[in-house]
């Protein structure tokens, strides 16, 4: 039972940390708006995924020099710059846009 003389003080330290971080979170408005954050955080993930997919595609495009995949890069110069930030929807992902593409 001597273990509790070590473990209980540790649990108390953790308790103090938990209380302080909770109070910090409330004071920093982390709990002011619980509805919106839960939804928007997923968008960032999606964009991240897309960026990775795009990067992959670009690298394969460079490797194979396939004219079809280069298509995604033939855009106005301003867009080329911006793909670095967040854009660039590969056609495979966006069904709606790809179907529009088929029509045109």
């Amino acid at each position, binding site marked *: 039972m001597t273990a509790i003389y070590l473990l209980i003080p540790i649990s108390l330290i953790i308790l103090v940390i938990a209380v302080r971080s909770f109070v910090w979170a409330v004071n920093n408005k982390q709990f002011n708006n619980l509805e*919106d954050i839960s939804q928007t955080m997923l968008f960032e993930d999606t964009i991240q995924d897309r960026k990775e997919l795009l990067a992959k595609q670009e690298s394969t495009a460079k490797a194979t020099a396939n004219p079809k995949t280069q298509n995604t890069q033939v855009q106005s110069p301003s867009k080329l710059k911006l793909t670095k930030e967040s854009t660039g*929807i590969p056609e495979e992902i966006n069904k709606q846009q790809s179907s529009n593409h088929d029509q045109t």
Partner: protein
Amino acid sequence: MTALHCFHCDELINQVQTIEQQIHGKMQSFCCLGCASIAGMIDSNGLVDFYDFRSQSSAKANNEKQNSYLIYDKTNVQQQYFVAKNAKTSHIQLLVEDIRCAACIWLIKARLSRVVGVSKIEVDSLSKIVSFDWTADTTLLSKIMQKLDDIGFPCTPYCIENEIVQKNNYRNDILKRLGVAGLGMMQTMMFATGLYLGDSELTNTFNTSNDLASSDRALLQWVSLIVTSFVLWYSAAPFYKNAYRSVLVGKIGIDMPISLALFIAYGSSLYNILNNHPHVYFDTVTMFTFLILLGRLAEAQTRNFLARTLSSSKNKIPILARRVGNEGDAQSINGNPSSLPKEDWLPIVELAKYDTVLVKVGETVPIDGIIIEGDTWFDQSFITGESNLVVGNIGTLALAGSINTHAPIKLRTENLSGQRLIDQIIQFKQSGTQNKPHLEMQLDTVAKYFSLAVILVASFVYLGWTFYQPEKALLVTLSVLVISCPCALSLAVPTAQACTQAILNKLGVAVAHHHFLETLLKTTDVLFDKTGTLTEGKVTISQVNFLHREQFLHSGEALNKVLDKPCLLAFIASLEAESEHPIAQAFLPYLDPAIKATNIKYVVGEGVSGDIDGLRYYVGSPLFIDENVPSAKAKFNSIDYNIGDQPHLIVASNSGIIASILTQDQTRNDAHTLVNYLHDLDIQTHILSGDPSDKSTLLAKQLGINNVQQGMLAQNKMGYVESLHQQGRISLMIGDGINDAPVLSVAHNSIAMGSGSDLSRVSADAVLINNQLSSLVHVFKLAKQHKAVITSNIYWALGYNVITIPMAVFGFIPPYLAAIGMSLSSLVVLWNATRLLNKNTFEKIRHESTKQLVAN
């Protein structure tokens, strides 16, 4: 080909005017240039993902008005709105009304985060407020606002209301205390598990050998003591502060037994530790604190929610005015036109008497003033709650808060900021809140006597035992205190409250004050506002009578349309398309893009005329038609057409009268249900209307309401309710306008409509979010069940004490049984409250009310 929808706003595209633009490498169609430019802007910023993320279509671009944000670069204007954090940084709040879904939030955040000088961006979709820290000398504020406008979010600076800040701070305070209590509760319960399982009496009973070494027990007890002391000191502080305050005033409320319970449980545990007795009740102390705080948080949350859902710029009185001069220098203006002072935006607090203020169409009048130029109609629904437009001519007083709907006007300031009618109403509201009568709650009464009884019994027991067996006196007194601990009693109401709240949310009713349901049952008089409460508050078309159909047939041949009722309404709609008049709004649903009116001319207070397909049409009052339609002259007589008293609109073309149209502010279809239900309960009903016309009397007759008061100002309504109070009546006021705010705050109980003004909603005790009056029938029924549960909870708590206290007094109850009994009695109370949540209960309420609806 299938119908095309706009890529940005999803509206149907008029095939002729389709605009195509390349968005992210694909051709997309747009309904207008505005939408196309927004989408282009979003795309060029690399934020085109927005269109994938959004779950709702965006607002259509405003093509006519170019918002100018330049005025917000002026320092005196900025001072009105923004809180400076330090020399350079200030906290900015913008109201963005077009925030519709999570994707909008993402878009705004992503766009603003790229602007230099903007940090800590927060977007709240409920209050539609975007807030951020802005460093002054980096990007001009007007540029930042323009950037938001460019991606489809027009914005206005927003002066955050104190109510929102206060309610948010209160909620966060409770949340912190709750969090601390919760964490402390988990810890003490963990230690308590060890203490209970290792309890010597327990292990002896069950013949196990888990007995704790006394040093280990002491450790667990001391650690629990530390944690609990912190919880008691921090989380439970509001209870004994309130209790102390209530004792000073001589009114003992529910916080008294709560504090008593906490101190009894904590004190006796402390005594036991110091005297080496094995039993401590720290787990009870922390759990009890946690549960009570949970109830308080639920209430704070509802209030916070209500305060946040306010804000719409239309319901806001501007704090800026467009000053164009002062009466004093009018002479020089006339003499020398070139010295005309430039249009200048000023905060209204800086306006002086006799300043001239310009108010354009669609703007809200910022200050009370006499009209010195222009004729218009005012929408005063914000101030009076009445939807009919009021005519404003030269010499009439325009009230701050009314919306200028037709023509630009110039005002000479009359009442300066702080003395405006609207300021007076707000003052009335505040005095109403102070004078609000409070009925004593059932529990408060019980709590008062119970607290006194516990203290008395405990002192008698102690005295008695000191004579009999002094060494046992303290122990027995402690067990009496533990047994009588008012935990169960204190939980009786909050637990029932939490369960009722859940059902109320489903019914679309938000209750902001805990006394609401109990007071509701005592109601003797229900007072209704008329417009917006008993009626929908918007005009609809109730009747169309063709008087000379042939005129219409003759005129419309060329359009190749079936000339029936909808077609006629579409004609009128195209004439009224640009008008903000509530009657014009009634025609809006009938708008047909194929019919276009030209040369439209409004005559304030009378009617409108315009050309459709080469023929001139007139819509307006009989007088207007009389004056303007040559062929109708002398021929027109309302009696000939059986038109009666009600105001009719007459439609005519150049060749003669076509039809008469009757418009009406529709009575809410469930007003009948509610009024009948109230009469069944023997509750008196009243209408307090700001409308001076006889409409309220008619409505009262129609609904069977007993008492009608017309043309009442905000202070009259307040006086009426106060006189009812003096007769010992218990009032329930239901209203929606800003003029109802004072009476809502003074009535015993009040309900605001969800569609009502911001001020009325923060003044009321409850808000009908779904605007369904019939929900109130359910609320009345629920209130009855709520009370039944509270009563049974109180009886249980008292009954339990009546049986166990005498046993404890004579020393029959060992301390560990006392502890178990204390927890069990609280659990029973909890279980009893959750009976409210029982599905059957909710279904039963619903079933009964539908039955009643059918019966009616």
